[in-house]
């Protein structure tokens, strides 16, 4: 391009680009045999380790006389399944050979393609092998010391016999967190709105709600439950002194988690663009109407994931009520565990807590997805 009439220079005359650049992207590929050989070696090692571990499990089961056709079948199946590791490893080796052949025939492009495939398969082998190694580690932990770990945490007979009692006690946890969650949703919103009230008149209200959130977010939940659960009955205050331990737990957890959730609400409300507020106010809606119909409905949609985080935290913290002697699942399990000198009932409770959170996460994901599909343009 020559220089144009308005005085700007064309590309050729300018010094913006180097002049002695060479095409460097066309190098011949390196030999991938090393990678594929390593993949093959690792696959074989991991398979041997797996077989040895499976053998260990088998003899451990035999020693406690709980081997059966079913367990043996499962072990054999695992032993066969681990052979799948050889598939990508062998594939990688074959591609490496074909890359060598292509290179010998001066087919650079063919060599590159085979090389890339060889590498990809080698990496697949490493990825799966790493996970198998982790699983083997866990299995070794459970069978170590003559099945000591398994017996301490997973004594099936004790889990079975204590399950009824633990499940029944788990209702206490569910009762506490369901009631507390409802109260937290309301209380947190009140605190958040108090903290965001505009104007000079609301300054003291803003201050007191700020102090509240600062205090109760800093106060450990277990101390809060302890103080309220033991302290309020001692005060002898009418009505309040006669509440059940569960009610004190609900009160304490609402105060603690209300502070967290108020902050979540606040961040949600503040994330709504001011133009939404301007639009609502310009239509004559009052400040409170704007919050009620425009800001909070949009904010709530945004804060559902962090809100769920806090709720899962609250659900787990219901186990803290054992400090005030409420018979929840954890406390019940501890009693059984000390009677039998075995931790298996506590493991059951641990599993129960995990089990209730997973469906909630999935449900919330589903709800968010549905809501977005409704509001967003199709296809995106």
């Amino acid at each position, binding site marked *: 391009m020559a220089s144009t009439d308005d005085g700007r220079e064309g590309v050729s005359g300018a010094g913006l680009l180097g002049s002695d650049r060479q095409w460097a992207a066309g190098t011949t590929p390196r030999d991938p045999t090393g990678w594929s050989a390593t993949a093959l070696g690792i696959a074989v090692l991991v398979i041997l380790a797996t077989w040895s571990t499976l053998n260990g499990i088998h003899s451990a089961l035999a020693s406690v006389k709980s081997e059966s056709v079913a367990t043996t079948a499962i072990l054999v199946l695992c032993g066969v399944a681990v052979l799948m590791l050889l598939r990508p490893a062998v594939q990688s080796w074959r591609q490496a050979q074909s890359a060598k052949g292509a290179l010998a025939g001066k087919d650079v492009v063919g060599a590159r393609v085979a090389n890339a495939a060889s590498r990809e398969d080698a990496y697949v082998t490493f990825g799966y092998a790493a996970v198998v190694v982790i699983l083997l580690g866990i299995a070794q932990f459970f069978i170590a010391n003559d099945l000591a770990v398994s017996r301490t945490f997973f004594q099936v007979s004790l889990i079975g016999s204590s399950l009824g009692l633990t499940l029944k006690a788990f209702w206490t946890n569910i009762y506490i967190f369901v009631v507390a969650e409802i109260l937290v949703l309301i209380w947190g919103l009140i605190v958040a709105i108090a903290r965001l009230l505009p104007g000079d008149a609301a300054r003291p209200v803003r201050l007191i709600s700020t102090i509240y959130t600062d205090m109760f977010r800093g106060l450990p939940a277990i101390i809060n439950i302890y103080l309220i659960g033991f302290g309020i009955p001692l005060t002898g205050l009418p009505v309040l002194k006669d509440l059940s331990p569960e009610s004190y737990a609900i009160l304490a957890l609402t105060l603690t988690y209300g502070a967290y959730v108020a902050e979540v609400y606040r961040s949600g409300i503040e994330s709504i663009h001011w*133009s*939404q507020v*301007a*639009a*609502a*106010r*310009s*239509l*004559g*809606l*009052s400040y409170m*109407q704007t919050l009620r*119909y*425009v800001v909070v*409905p*949009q904010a709530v*949609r945004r804060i559902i994931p962090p809100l769920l985080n806090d709720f899962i935290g609250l659900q787990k913290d219901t186990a803290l009520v054992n400090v005030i002697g409420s018979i929840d699942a954890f406390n019940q399990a501890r009693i059984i565990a000390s009677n039998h000198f075995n931790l298996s009932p506590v493991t059951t409770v641990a599993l129960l807590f995990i089990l209730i959170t997973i469906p909630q996460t999935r449900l919330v994901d589903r709800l968010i997805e549905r809501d977005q599909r*409704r*509001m*967003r*343009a*199709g296809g995106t």
Partner: protein
Amino acid sequence: MAMIEIRNITKSYGEFKVFNGLSLEVEEHQVVCLIGPSGCGKSTLLRCMNGLETIQGGEIRIHGDRMSGPGVDVNALRRDVGIVFQSYNLFPHMTVLENVTLAPVKVLNESRAEAEAKALRLLKRIGLEHKAQEYPDRLSGGQQQRVAIVRALAMGPMVLLLDEITSALDPELVSEVLNIVRDLAAEGMTMLLATHEMGFAREVASKICFLYGGKVHEEGPPAQIFSNPSEERTRAFLQRIIEAGRL
């Protein structure tokens, strides 16, 4: 007496004086276009007029009644003075119909049926009654802005403020929005427009105001301002608009 009298208003953001004794009169049924460089206060003036922002000196009177300063019922003021924004600002969590009926139901206390009938009538006039149950994100920018105009009209405003309502639109969507403004002008709606659409301003405006230096630097009928501006600043501004191919 003019319907809207803006007298000698002042407003500063820190050191920066947005208004430095700005005065402006708008007669009933007039369409006044505010033009001027970015940051000259076109949008701020409109926002002050319906109480979204406050002025620091001077006063704004509507029908002779002072509508600025303390003690004014801004919620009532906003029922009479509607505003439409550059970025539409529809409520994304509500359908088109809910967007339009929210304020009539909650502020004017109309029954839901009554408000919906009125909303559908207005949506039909702009050819969007089939979108009543859609969410704003499923509408094009031009459609969203038309809904935003209808949302303001559903409150039955006496004055409509339009704040660069076509600036965020793709060029081919501008006309559908401007046609509505044209219809409203023909029906006698009193309007103030902040705009960069000079051709449109020339066509619909009863009066053009060029804002500069915190004041109305020059005002007059479109024919005079666009063909024969008397001020040097106005001429320079319009020259740049012509160079950009916008006039």
